[in-house]
């Protein structure tokens, strides 16, 4: 028996070691906090209050039941091991525990009613958020990344980005949610609840960030191989910084200035990149992959999978299937000079 135990332990340790080694091989970026209790917005605060109330009520009920169990065990009679069974109560009529059952049912109903009312009140509070002066953003989920389109009355002022949702602090945000393929779910626990993105439907989600910061989001509905690597980040900035970011995003990509970046642009325009990606201001206009117009301004690539640094970007372009097996981006074979130029060009797109 002990030898089997030892063998099991060794196998488990080896598996854990392999998992750790794999995890170290993939530098996974976890930007910001992913914590439903660290609320940073009005909607999340309401949900947090409801959560706290529910936990308090459930804890009280759990403790009361345990207390009752312990008390009843304590008060029941004890017998010695060798004593004969006491059968005297068989013939005696016993009063049922009518009163205690009645009390339990009444208290349960009252507590459940409290939770129902609290839930309705929370729902109403969530719906009552003022949408005056709201920021409208269209979110389209793809396997496995997020497309973000900032609309405007002026067509020239709309722009598209990916995986990093910038919002102004204190202003309500209305997300219009669509999906391009399968069902996904958008979840930023610090700011709001979950909302599914369902094929063929448009849904909306409203939230407001009250504190500046970076908040992690994650797809919360299993959507295929790389569901776990479908993260994104909400970046809540003070209004002036947000406006500056929007003004920068509305600009087309900067023309490459040095020879390396110019060569990088040529490489981009003649390789497979141009079949799926767009860079405003160039002839690349495909909409199947993330918009790369301002790639250099983002902190992560591949939906929060890798940090956006030249070395990681080069490894990603050379073989995305190493990091996200099954993703729709194919490997691109380039000479090391071409790859260096391409990465320099992409990182220059601030």
């Amino acid at each position, binding site marked *: 028996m002990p030898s089997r135990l030892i063998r099991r332990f060794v196998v488990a340790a080896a598996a854990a070691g392999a998992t750790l080694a794999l995890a170290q091989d993939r530098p996974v970026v976890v930007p910001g906090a992913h914590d439903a209790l660290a609320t940073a917005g009005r909607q999340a605060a309401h949900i947090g209050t409801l959560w706290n109330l529910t936990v308090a009520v459930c804890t009280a009920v759990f403790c009361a039941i345990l207390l009752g169990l312990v008390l009843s065990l304590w008060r029941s009679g004890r017998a010695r091991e060798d004593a004969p069974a006491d059968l005297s109560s068989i013939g005696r009529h016993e009063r049922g525990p009518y009163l205690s059952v009645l009390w339990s049912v009444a208290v349960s109903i009252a507590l459940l009613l409290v939770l129902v009312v609290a839930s309705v009140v929370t729902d109403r509070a969530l719906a009552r958020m003022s949408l005056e002066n709201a920021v409208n953003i269209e979110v389209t989920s793809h396997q496995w990344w997020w497309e973000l389109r900032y609309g405007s009355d002026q067509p020239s002022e709309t722009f598209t980005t990916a995986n990093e949702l910038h919002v102004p602090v204190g202003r309500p945000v209305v997300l219009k949610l669509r999906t391009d393929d399968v069902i996904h779910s958008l979840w930023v626990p610090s700011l709001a609840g979950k909302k599914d993105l369902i094929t063929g439907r448009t849904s909306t989600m409203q939230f407001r960030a009250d504190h500046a910061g970076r908040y992690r989001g994650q797809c919360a509905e299993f959507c295929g191989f790389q569901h776990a690597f479908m993260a994104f980040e909400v970046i809540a900035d003070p209004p002036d910084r947000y406006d500056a970011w929007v003004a920068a995003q509305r600009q087309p990509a900067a023309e490459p200035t040095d020879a390396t970046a110019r060569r990088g642009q040529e490489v981009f325009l003649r390789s*497979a990149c141009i*079949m799926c990606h767009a860079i405003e201001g160039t002839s690349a206009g495909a909409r199947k992959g993330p918009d790369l117009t301002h790639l250099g301004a983002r902190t992560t690539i591949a939906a929060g999978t890798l940090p956006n640094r030249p070395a990681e970007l080069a490894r990603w372009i050379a073989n995305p299937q190493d990091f996200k097996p099954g993703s729709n981006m*194919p490997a*691109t074979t380039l000479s090391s000079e071409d790859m260096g130029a391409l990465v320099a060009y992409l990182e220059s797109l601030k």
Partner: protein
Amino acid sequence: MKARLLAVSALVAVALAGCYREKREFQSPPETSPTDTARLSAVLPGASAAWKPGSQPSPDRSRYEENAYAVNQGKRLYRWYNCSGCHSNGGGGMGVPLMDEKWLYGHEPRAIYATIVEGRPNGMPAFGGRIPDDQIWQIVAYVRSLSGQLRKDVATSRADALSAAPPENTREKFKPVPDKPASSSQ
């Protein structure tokens, strides 16, 4: 005893065949992307003119034509790369139909591959150097499924968008007519 052994082996074989059909290969084969050969090809109709046997690497049938995942990816790429812009959902429009028995430049996988890589006169652009090799083979497999050339359990059954035609896996298999040089009407 023998019968049971046979039955078990048959079951295992069926199960293994199932895995094979569903196997998903994510790593591209080692070949590099095809170079832009558009200007080098002899752009004449007829299979032998533009495509010479042995001039293209022979694809692994099991990886593309007998793999449901590859055909499915081919179907997505067909739409994403706007093949549907000219060929519609196979019925043709500005480009020729792909769901019938007529093949001006050859119906074999390698001939279709060459057509995509090199381009053809009167509108078919050359995609050589633009699309990675294995994606071209996936598109080739899907294009062949349009006229029922693939096995029914490999061809796709569902489309993301509305489609007037029956699903690819219920289509009758067309027998490709012998390739012949196009008449003056083409």
